[in-house]
């Protein structure tokens, strides 16, 4: 820990608040996020609906709060899957080299030849729309970063004296990976994850916005924006609420990630 960073604290607190909101969404808001009230369509913000109502008369505030569950939760899920895949494949390839390594690098290089958003769109477009496929598509795009970072570091850690010493003294490969290599990778992976999650969240939201991710009537910020698209001129508050929520979440992730990278002095290695 080189120095204290205000950005990390602020970003971290916002993320924590969002996580809390998603955990206690139903007790925070009493109104049903999917109950439509066709008598009260497209009402601007007022006392009973502080952020107004949408084209089906659903309460925007309630939808906004419930959406944290999908928007934040799904991003975290996609992040975890990407980390797990990238970390394990990168470790194995970097440590054992050989055919696995060449194969992994070939696959990564091919995947990196596709612009990320376009590859995930194509996967969802072909495999079919839906939240599960969207998460899968985003993971296909983002695990490569982890695999590359982890593989590179494993390669260099393997040459370090403490690993050589452990090998000479007869530790098994699994033990060396678990005791000596993995702990030395973790900081970098955490910093990389902290800087990567904003782009994962952004991609998932974009997929939902395009109608390929989470499906209506589920409350999700991307979907809310998609539904608001037709009402830009008549009901701009429908854009403002989920739009600000998205910007807040992504900026919080950025703030947290940048700050963490600065604190732990890992900026160079993860490329920011």
């Amino acid at each position, binding site marked *: 820990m080189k120095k204290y960073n205000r950005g990390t604290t602020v970003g971290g607190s916002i993320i924590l608040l969002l996580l809390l909101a998603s955990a206690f969404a139903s007790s925070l808001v009493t109104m049903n996020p999917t109950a439509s009230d066709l008598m009260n369509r497209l009402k601007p913000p007022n006392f009973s609906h502080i952020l107004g109502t949408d084209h089906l008369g659903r309460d925007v505030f309630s939808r906004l709060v419930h959406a944290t569950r999908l928007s934040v939760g799904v991003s975290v899920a996609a992040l975890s899957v990407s980390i797990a895949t990238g970390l394990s494949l990168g470790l194995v390839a970097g440590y054992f080299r050989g055919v696995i390594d060449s194969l992994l690098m070939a696959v990564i290089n091919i995947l990196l030849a596709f*612009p990320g958003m*376009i590859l995930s769109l194509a996967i969802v477009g072909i495999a079919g729309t839906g939240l599960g496929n969207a998460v899968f598509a985003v993971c296909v795009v983002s695990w490569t970063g982890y695999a590359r970072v982890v593989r590179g570091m494993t390669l260099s850690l393997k040459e370090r004296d403490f690993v050589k010493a452990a090998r000479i003294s007869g530790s098994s490969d699994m033990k060396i990976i678990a005791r000596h290599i993995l702990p030395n990778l973790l900081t970098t992976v955490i910093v990389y994850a902290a800087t990567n999650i904003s782009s994962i969240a952004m991609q998932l939201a974009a997929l939902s916005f*395009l109608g390929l991710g989470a499906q209506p009537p589920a409350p999700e910020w*991307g979907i809310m924006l998609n539904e608001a698209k037709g009402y*830009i001129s008549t009901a701009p508050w429908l854009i403002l609420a989920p739009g600000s929520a*998205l*910007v807040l979440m992504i900026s919080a992730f950025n703030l947290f990630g940048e700050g963490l990278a600065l604190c732990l002095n890992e900026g160079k290695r993860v490329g920011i």
Partner: protein
Amino acid sequence: MWKYAAKKTLGLVAILFGVSVLTFVLTAWIRGNPAEVVLGRAGVDPSRADVVMMEQRMGLDQSIVARYLDWARNLLRLDFGTSYTSGLPVIEEIKYRLPATLHLTAGAFVLMLVTAVPIAIFMVVKKDSWTEYSLNAVTFIVMGTPGFVLGMGLAWLISVRLRLLPMVGNKTPAHSVLPIITLALPMACRYIRLIRSNIIEVLDEDYIFLLRTRGLKERTILFSHALKNAFIPIVNLMGISLGSLLGGSIVVESIFSWPGLGNYLMISIGNRDYPVVLAYVLLMATVFVAINYLVDLFICFLDPRIPFTEGKGR
């Protein structure tokens, strides 16, 4: 240098081959039998015999390798198959819509360059002033704004409230202003921050200190020494950002009903028009890979050390 270029070219060919294989693999995820999809689109409930006949016509009864080779051979002749929806060759459909998308991405790229560099330099010159702090905050927030949020915000503010610019379509040059700004702005902000921190980092180098002790003007130091060095990592990233621009164009086209490839892709996904989706992915990956290949060569020209250090770090 030539050896390096040859190595890169070989890599390019290998990657393009890999790209075609992976795109082909994507077809494995198609839900249901493509022959049935095609027949079903014609509105008939296909009988077993019809499906088998269609499979033969589409070559689906051959082995996977034979199918790939057949498909790849057609690709080399720019034959991407025919669209299920329109029955026209996919390449014709793409050719028809490509200019609109190029207009958008090229415009955004140029706008990004001409705004990011001066603003970044301005921030370095104004370091530690309130101007810099506020620019810092603004660029940070815009950087974290997804294209569709920014686009809809701008559309509301500029088209609906201020009535300055038209919102939907691409009839006049004025129509392209909002989509281009929407596409360029978040990326430009990312670059402003990157270029700024790179320049500041380079200005901290020993040789900059030494140039100062030789009494060279700060302007000479910034423009003829620091900028070039600060730019090398940026140029590398620009090739990669082009991918984000291409991806972002889909969202922007969908907001502003811009009749380009992205919009066409979304319609085709909705219609389960797989040949179009595959052709689009393949085309974008090829463009992306080719641009990055050129960027690699260009960097080599900027930084003479590259051909000598490449490969040592791996």
